């Protein structure tokens, strides 16, 4: 409850601190992070190709928005559907593998999708991206104005967070964590592990797809990078920095990552150095990311007070 309040307050205050476009991007990226964390944090699968689903959804929904003028809800539905479907395809090929092979396979298939987007210029615009994506109104209310679109995204983010919370607290969430904890035993007690991994993959793909459509409508363009490995890497990065051990870690990660990349990059071109340092610190000392730093700080404080 307190966490929810904190999130709502952040949603309200954020546009006062940063431009609405960046504020919007933070919540979009947070949805994307929630998706990745279902795989990374909860199931123990490092997907290094999550932009496949983000990008595919952005392209397909973007194209339909541009050429057929579909409404907002259809666009979101298409995004979620394309995300899930592409994840089903990729996941089917990946979940039988584990460890490094799994990671490399998600990466390789990501590259495959990237080069399809790169080559298929008549649809995707190749390197120039796919511009001119409209932002249709929601039930007669225009969301052209950036603050209105921000409100729309915030609402969808809260909805996604609620849905993801339900999922991780459901039996499925427990089963996925059991797979993370001990795959052999999970199989032995009666779970078809590859099938559950695939299910996790499809759900994560659906959320990634939602993030992809929102991204396309935010900037009115799908750049080729949206389906590239840098975006795949960024979401892993952000999630790890925020903390993959908790539901809220990726949200914090998204905030840190987008805020740094948008604000600091204008002041200092070598800003990724900062991220690199942050990443090294997380890997060496703080496996639980910012969330762990926070809890450690509070236990340290309370132990000082009582002692």
């Amino acid at each position: 409850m307190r966490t929810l309040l904190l999130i709502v307050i952040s949603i309200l205050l954020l546009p006062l601190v940063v431009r609405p476009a960046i504020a919007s991007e933070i919540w979009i990226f947070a949805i994307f992070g929630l998706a990745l964390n279902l795989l990374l944090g909860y199931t123990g699968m490092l997907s290094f190709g999550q932009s496949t689903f983000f990008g595919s959804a952005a392209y397909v929904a973007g194209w339909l928005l541009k050429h057929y003028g579909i409404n907002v809800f259809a666009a979101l539905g298409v995004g979620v559907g394309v995300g899930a479907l592409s994840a089903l395809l990729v996941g089917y090929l990946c979940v039988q593998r584990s460890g490094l092979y799994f990671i490399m396979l998600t990466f390789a298939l990501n590259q495959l999708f990237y080069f399809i987007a790169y080559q298929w210029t008549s649809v995707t615009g190749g390197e120039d991206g796919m511009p001119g994506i409209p932002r249709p109104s929601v039930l007669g209310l225009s969301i052209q104005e950036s603050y209105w679109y921000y409100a729309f995204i915030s609402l969808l983010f809260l909805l996604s967070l609620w849905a993801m919370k339900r999922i991780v607290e459901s039996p499925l969430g427990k089963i996925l964590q059991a797979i993370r904890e001990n795959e052999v035993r999970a199989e032995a007690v009666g779970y078809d592990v590859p099938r559950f991994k695939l299910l996790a993959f499809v759900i994560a793909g659906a959320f990634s797809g939602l993030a992809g459509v929102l991204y396309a409508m935010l900037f009115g363009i799908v750049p080729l990078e949206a389906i590239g490995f840098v975006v795949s890497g960024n979401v892993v990065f952000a999630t790890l920095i925020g903390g993959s051990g908790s539901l809220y870690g990726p949200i914090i990660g998204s905030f840190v990552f987008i805020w740094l990349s948008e604000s600091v990059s204008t002041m200092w071109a070598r800003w990724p150095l900062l991220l690199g340092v942050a990443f090294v610190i997380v890997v060496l000392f703080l496996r639980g990311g910012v969330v762990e730093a926070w809890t450690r700080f509070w236990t340290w404080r309370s132990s000082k007070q009582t002692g």
Partner: protein
Amino acid sequence: MALLETDGLTKSFGALTAVNGVSLRIEAGKLHSIIGPNGAGKTTLFNLLTGTFPPTSGTIVFDGKDITGTPAARIAHLGLARSYQRTTVFPAFSLLDNVWVAAFATSRPWKGLLFKNAHEYPQVVERARAALSDVGLLSKAEVPAKQISHGELRQLELAIALAAAPRVLLLDEPAAGLSPDETRKMVALVRALKGRYTIVLIEHKIDIIMSVSDRISVMHFGSLIAEGTPEEIQRNPEVRRAYLGGVAA
């Protein structure tokens, strides 16, 4: 009638034949032990029975149905549950969640799999608590598994198998690495389970075997060399040579 039966079960890893033509009959409701020196193929036999890998040849029949080659995830649903020689639990989970996961797997229907809260399955929770209570760990239900002692982990290991409400329990050295005191507790535990389940037990500690078993099969270099009641096994000269060896001869 035998509840679990193997016929000519063989498993080869390249040139090594770990299990060689094993024909076993496990009677319902009995405690059937499998003994043998290290490397005799006992654990490999368990891995075959629980579908970890398929046999090279031979068949496994459970309750009149041929289950040879059935994958591990399906075996649990048929009513065969195992514990591991090397503790195999879910470390970050509380003890209750450890057994909850096993209890849920074999409970049906899975309505609300994706959105119902995991605590909203009273029957599953009840079954999980019963399994913990059976091994005497109910008071630690909320403690994470990584914080309990080795002896308790061995009890948890057993509870996970029990939570599946199996018909046959396959216990792989439940007393592995336990102190004499803990071993006594474990033996009492196994004895209490006797009669409630059909139990197949692998064990090294010969005194345990002799005191709890209804029947004993002796494995040596992948093959069965003897089978009988504890008294028959103790008298069997071939067993004394192969297994009891230096101690009894």
